[in-house]
């Protein structure tokens, strides 16, 4: 923790993964110029190799949590979300290469923007300084806007990008306003310093309204990133319009990053060692607010998903609903609740990456993501379809899948934190979600479709889908692997 004792080079070494990722992004950008934009495969391989290197550096990174450069926290919590991001980016790169709607020339910016978005995530999950958090968030957002509109000739893609920019700009403004109020109330931008600020505690005893306004505005910014109600309006349109690999990135990596920053915010502000008692007490009210948002978000997401005919739109609403489930863990405001939320995010990684990969696969087969086009395709593409059924079971939250175990953990922690009503709402929601997830399985296996010739699809893509499907079953039987990791990641709370 003693920053003065660390040499400059030691501090640089601590952020080696970030620096490497930055380097890889720039190398890809220059390599694109060098090859005149004609060698997309090379760029993809460069990016994946770079990501593997970053992952290896992260994997080797362990030991005591420390703060370098006065505001970058290097700890296990950040490491969890950074490895999550690297792992999702590798899969997304795989999807980009297999995206039939994307020609593989002139895609240098695609890889550069994805890697830069990853860099934004790296910084936003590893700081308690609101300035750095905001910059990381903006870097992620900026890349996402451009990526959503990457298919330039495509009107829906352009519309998606435009909506994303407008909503994003608004929510960034709201969040910055909240941050400025928090700075005005405490005189610092660091969350840990805020958490034991005497002036903030005095203010809370006097009147909590100004503090509530500030914190709610900041949480609104996070709610936008994780697409929680009422900041979810952009989600279906952007998910539908953006190129499918980008949708996957937004649904998995970007959402997890939002949760990472939210959990860090709540943890540092209300739950660290040495937090002022009045402020810790106030955290319970914020928890109650989050519980309310969670209930509305999951209900809204599931009910809207029921009547969708586009697979991508359906998964968009489903991802809104899943944000609601994860919020149970955040609303619990306990270390165990956070742990459950992180476990669920790990489960979410397998099920949603897998589901979107399947969407990409059938887009290549049928040319669209309409649900009705899937009719009768199950027997023709047995491997992918069986994997899809496993993923759907997991998304619904039935055994024997990670979705079930993750929900089980969240529900247990929810009940422990006294949120029985929320857990009941979530359980009812899971029943509702059964209807729309199984419409997909029904279309694949039980309905007759038109006789169309079997299209040969990339074997790499089906292998990837199978791996993700297998992962979503495997970790149901080996939950400890993730649990140990998630538990170790809570070192940010101190002690």
């Amino acid at each position: 923790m003693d920053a003065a004792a660390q040499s400059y080079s030691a501090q640089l070494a601590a952020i080696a993964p970030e620096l490497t990722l930055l380097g890889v992004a720039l190398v890809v950008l220059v390599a694109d110029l060098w090859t005149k934009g004609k060698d997309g495969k090379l760029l993809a391989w460069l990016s994946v190799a770079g990501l593997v290197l970053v992952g290896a550096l992260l994997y080797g990174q362990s030991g005591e949590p420390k703060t370098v450069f006065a505001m970058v926290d290097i700890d296990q919590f950040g490491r969890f979300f950074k490895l999550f991001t690297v792992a999702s980016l590798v899969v997304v790169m795989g999807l980009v290469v297999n995206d039939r709607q994307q020609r593989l020339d002139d895609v240098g910016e695609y890889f550069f923007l994805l890697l830069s978005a990853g860099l934004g995530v790296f910084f936003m999950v590893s700081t308690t300084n609101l300035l750095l958090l905001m910059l990381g968030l903006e870097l992620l957002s900026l890349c996402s806007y451009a990526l959503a509109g990457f298919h330039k000739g495509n009107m829906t893609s352009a519309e998606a990008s435009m909506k994303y920019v407008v909503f994003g700009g608004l929510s960034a403004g709201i969040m910055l306003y909240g941050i400025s109020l928090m700075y005005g109330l405490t005189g610092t931008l660091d969350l840990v310093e805020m958490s034991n600020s005497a002036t903030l505690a005095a203010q809370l005893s006097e009147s909590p309204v100004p503090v509530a306004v500030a914190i709610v505005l900041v949480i609104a910014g996070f709610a936008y990133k994780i697409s929680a109600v009422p900041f979810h309006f952009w989600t279906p349109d952007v998910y539908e319009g953006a190129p499918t690999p980008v949708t996957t990135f937004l649904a998995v990596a970007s959402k997890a990053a939002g949760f990472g920053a939210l959990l860090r915010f709540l943890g540092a502000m209300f739950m660290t060692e040495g937090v002022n008692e009045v402020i810790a007490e106030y955290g319970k009210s914020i928890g109650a607010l989050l519980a309310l948002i969670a209930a509305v978000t999951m209900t809204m997401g599931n009910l809207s998903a029921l009547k969708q005919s586009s697979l991508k739109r359906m998964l968009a609403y489903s991802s809104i609903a899943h944000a609601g489930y994860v919020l149970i863990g955040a609303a619990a405001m306990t270390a165990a609740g956070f742990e459950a939320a992180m476990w669920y995010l790990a489960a979410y990684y397998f099920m949603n990456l897998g589901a979107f990969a399947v969407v990409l696969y059938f887009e290549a087969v049928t040319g669209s993501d309409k649900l009705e086009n899937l009719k009768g395709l199950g027997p023709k593409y047995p491997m992918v379809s069986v994997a899809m059924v496993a993923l759907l079971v997991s998304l619904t939250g039935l055994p024997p899948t990670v979705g079930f175990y993750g929900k089980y953990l969240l529900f247990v922690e929810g009940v422990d934190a006294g949120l029985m009503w929320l857990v009941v709402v979530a359980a009812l929601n899971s029943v509702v979600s059964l209807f729309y997830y199984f419409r997909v399985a029904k279309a694949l296996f039980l309905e007759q479709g038109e006789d169309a010739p079997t299209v040969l699809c990339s074997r790499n893509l089906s292998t990837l889908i199978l791996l993700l499907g297998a992962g979503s079953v495997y970790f149901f039987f080996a939950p400890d692997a993730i649990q140990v990791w998630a538990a170790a990641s809570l070192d940010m709370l101190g002690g």
Partner: protein
Amino acid sequence: MDDKLQKPFYAALGVITLGLLGWGAASAGAQGIAFGLFTALTLGGSLICVWERSVVRSAFSLMGTFTGVAGLFLLLGADFLAVAQILIYVGGILALILFGVMLSPPDLAERKLSRVLGGLALMLGAVAWVGSKVAGTVAWATTDELPEPTTKVDEIGVAFLDPEGYVVPFELAAMILTVALVAAVYIARRKASDLTDPRAEERA
């Protein structure tokens, strides 16, 4: 908005300006007058911006807001912020907005006052309630005298590059600008193959 309301609106603005100037003069002398002037510029500019139907007028009235904010920064002794405010907002962003307005077709859709009144009243009520709570209960740091103006530019420069200061956010901001540039060029660029040569048709 309604032409009939044009005169009362500007009259009210004038009265508010005079009131602010008088209040400033009475409470803090010359500094108070300056504060009243800049506050009036800021508030008046933003009110005219949402009031006027012509986008060009709205854009120009924003200049008042930006300049007023720069003036407030100056009063607080933050000269660098004041100069940056003028350079970036007045010089850059406002010019950009005006270009955007000039290059886009005019939109003269009528805005009905009655339709916005309900929402306006609700919003004003909420803002007033929260505002009274915020203004009434927060122990904002106050001082009887404004701080002495100091040159802060060199200190800002040192803080940007100090490892114990803001070097990481500074460099990350550089990365954000790079990404913005690359993304903007990608979205705006057309490939040579997309462009049709008008002379080719003539030749044919």
